[in-house]
């Protein structure tokens, strides 16, 4: 496999970190970022005004009063570059971050995976599409070579595949792109050496004596004669990415589009960590100020942690469809983590029929649209009182697996429908009645005496009864009350009826 390196340089990282692109249209053209009273980065418009890197801020302001300057924001720069690094995890896991504004990707294997250099570049562009910063891409057979091509002036050829063309392109570049050469700038200038090619043609022994080993090593690394030692970048343990679109998001479909971008980054992060997550939180940021609102959060959870885009996307999209936007969204933030270990692949030859991924995926989908309280699972309690035993919980709260069943010896005959609260029945001629017609008792009694330890003795006799329509119900008589024992008609008017309707058979 031929080594091939892709360098991603972020030439205006400092400026992109300070001013989001959304604000850029409302700003003056010339922008500069300062650090410790020195100009640190300028955009092309500022460059045209004569502002140079390293200039003192007072001089820069004197030269051009319209220049907009701001303090450098290293933390935000890091965030932006990390987002690019995460997105690039989808291209290759072998990614180094040797300088603040430079990413180096070893893509020799990825060229084969994506089927050529062009599809690879397309994939990289796809990953960069949502990123709020400018990037310059360079491709070369050596890491340092790619980095140098990425730093070359505008218009230079940046993509070379063969060793020979790399040599040709590098020979033309000025040597001051190589940081190791800068301490010897005066000497090299005096020699009349202008390019890397000229540097290479100098006698090696003399160069080693005058400039030390580092410059020679750097040259050899650039031309691919010596490998460059690089430490691979490790993605962070927690995922947290923020996206600020050019314009405020007013409609759910717009939010969906941005959420899709963030979700792709989450999946790239999961791929890099070789993990999966069961829960992520989508944060909505609104305009601050007098009419501002604090950020909203929309948690999205899967019953079974997953790492695939489609599994997350279906649930996230459903949850977003239900989410009302109270105000225009200026930024979306997706956070998740830490990543859990993925399950081992099945070792059986055929798929396990007991695999319940389908059912759990359906559950996630139902919960995302209907809301957790609308999807319930039984969580039967070990209690003899039917209303206490019959507990239904939202699936998010219900215990997974087998619920506790009533104690052994409990008669299993329970109707399929149980009323929320027992309804009192009237008594006609000493018998329980519905709508004035006495019920016919078919089966029973089933005697329950329980809850005496709570100080409220529940003594009930349950019967299966049938009403005039032929419908069968589940009724009980409270024992221990004087009424209902007697068969004297008219007695029920004096006191509450001891008969209660508690369920329906069906």
């Amino acid at each position: 496999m031929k080594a091939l390196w892709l360098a991603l340089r972020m030439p205006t990282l400092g400026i992109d970190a300070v001013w989001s692109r959304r604000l850029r249209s409302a700003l003056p053209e010339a922008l500069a970022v300062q650090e410790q009273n020195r100009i640190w980065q300028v955009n092309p418009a500022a460059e045209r005004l004569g502002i140079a890197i390293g200039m003192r801020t007072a001089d820069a302001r004197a030269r051009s009063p319209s220049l907009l300057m701001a303090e450098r924001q290293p933390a935000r720069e890091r965030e932006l570059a990390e987002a690019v690094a995460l997105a690039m995890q989808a291209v290759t896991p072998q990614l180094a971050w040797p300088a603040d504004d430079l990413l180096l990707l070893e893509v020799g294997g990825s060229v084969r995976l994506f089927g050529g250099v062009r599809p690879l570049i397309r994939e990289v562009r796809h990953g960069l599409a949502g990123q709020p910063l400018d990037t310059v891409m360079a491709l070369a057979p050596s890491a340092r070579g790619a980095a140098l091509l990425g730093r070359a002036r505008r218009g230079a050829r940046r993509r070379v595949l063969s060793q020979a063309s790399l040599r040709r392109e590098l020979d033309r570049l000025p040597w001051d792109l190589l940081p190791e050469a800068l301490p010897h700038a005066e000497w090299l200038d005096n020699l009349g050496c202008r390019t890397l090619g000229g540097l290479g043609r100098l006698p090696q022994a003399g160069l080693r004596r005058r400039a030390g080993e580092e410059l020679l090593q750097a040259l050899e690394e650039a031309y691919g004669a010596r490998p460059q030692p690089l430490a691979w970048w490790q993605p962070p343990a927690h995922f947290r990415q923020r996206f600020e679109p050019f314009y405020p998001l007013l409609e759910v479909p717009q939010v969906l589009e941005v959420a899709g971008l963030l979700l792709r980054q989450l999946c790239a992060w999961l791929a890099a960590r070789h993990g999966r997550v069961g829960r992520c939180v989508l944060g909505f940021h609104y305009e601050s100020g007098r009419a501002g609102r604090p950020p909203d959060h929309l948690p999205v959870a899967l019953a079974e942690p997953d790492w695939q885009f489609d599994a997350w996307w279906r649930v996230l999209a459903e949850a977003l469809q239900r989410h009302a936007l109270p105000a225009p969204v200026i930024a979306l933030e997706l956070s998740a983590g830490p990543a859990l270990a993925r399950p081992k692949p099945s070792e059986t030859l055929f798929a396990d029929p007991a695999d319940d991924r389908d059912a759990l995926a359906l559950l996630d989908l139902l919960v995302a649209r209907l809301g957790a309280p609308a999807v319930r699972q039984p969580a039967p309690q070990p209690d003899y009182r039917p209303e206490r035993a019959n507990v239904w919980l939202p699936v998010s709260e219900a215990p997974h697996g087998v619920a506790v069943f009533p104690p052994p010896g409990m008669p299993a005959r329970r109707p399929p429908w149980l009323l929320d609260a027992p309804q009192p029945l009237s008594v006609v001629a000493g018998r329980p009645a519905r709508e004035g017609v006495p019920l016919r008792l078919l089966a029973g009694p089933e005697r329950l005496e329980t809850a005496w330890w709570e100080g409220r003795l529940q003594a009930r006799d349950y019967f299966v009864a049938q009403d005039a329509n032929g419908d069968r119900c589940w009724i009980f008589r409270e024992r221990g009350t004087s009424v209902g024992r007697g068969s004297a008609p008219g007695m029920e008017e004096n006191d509450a009826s001891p008969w209660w309707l508690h369920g329906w058979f069906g």
Partner: protein
Amino acid sequence: MSVSVASPAPHPAVWRATQAGPPPSRVLATGHPELAAHLPGRGWPYHCLIEFLTPRPGRSEASLLQPALAQVAGNAPILLVQPPHPPCAQGWLAPWPADARLWWLQPATLADTLWALNQAVRSGACAAVLAWLPEVTELALRRLHLAAQAAPTLLVVVRPWACRRQNSPAPLRLGLLPGKAGETEVHFLKMRGGRPVQPIVVAGGPGVAPVPAPASSTAMPSPLAALAGGGPGALA
């Protein structure tokens, strides 16, 4: 070489002229022999919409379906969508295996209900879906029927008895009328692949028919036996 036309199991797409049409390709045993005798394929058909029409929803369908559900209950969930009363977990789960899953869905709107039904059926993850839909258009039923075509899910929709005059795409429409004596009278309103038959009475009826017990536990004594013993007779 001649092929015997009287072969006991011809190809599912081939049927005798005396039959009204091909029986359903896959059925689920009903557990009620007198009902199975009249159903084409002798069971609840898969890959289609089954419609029950009943004047008082909840009063007869659960006991009619319970033996069939007990066979398929397990890891694949059984869904109760908008039941007419709060379901009693023990009442449903008792005859089922211990790992059976039962989900109770109570969507807020009819649109959500239909969406949930569609997702549940299309996913193919559910063993059975029982839905109580008092108000639903024929178009929605037709879509549900389409969704059910490919799914290995028993789909039963319970609607009011008053809807029996309306058109319906369901190949099997049964009217369930609770008789005066508590039994369930089954009217065969529409039966693709079957012949017109008179209404039948399913023995037992809800609440009194013996509950089919799982193989591991002992069968419940029939409450009718207790009745014959004279216990509650004194009360009546």
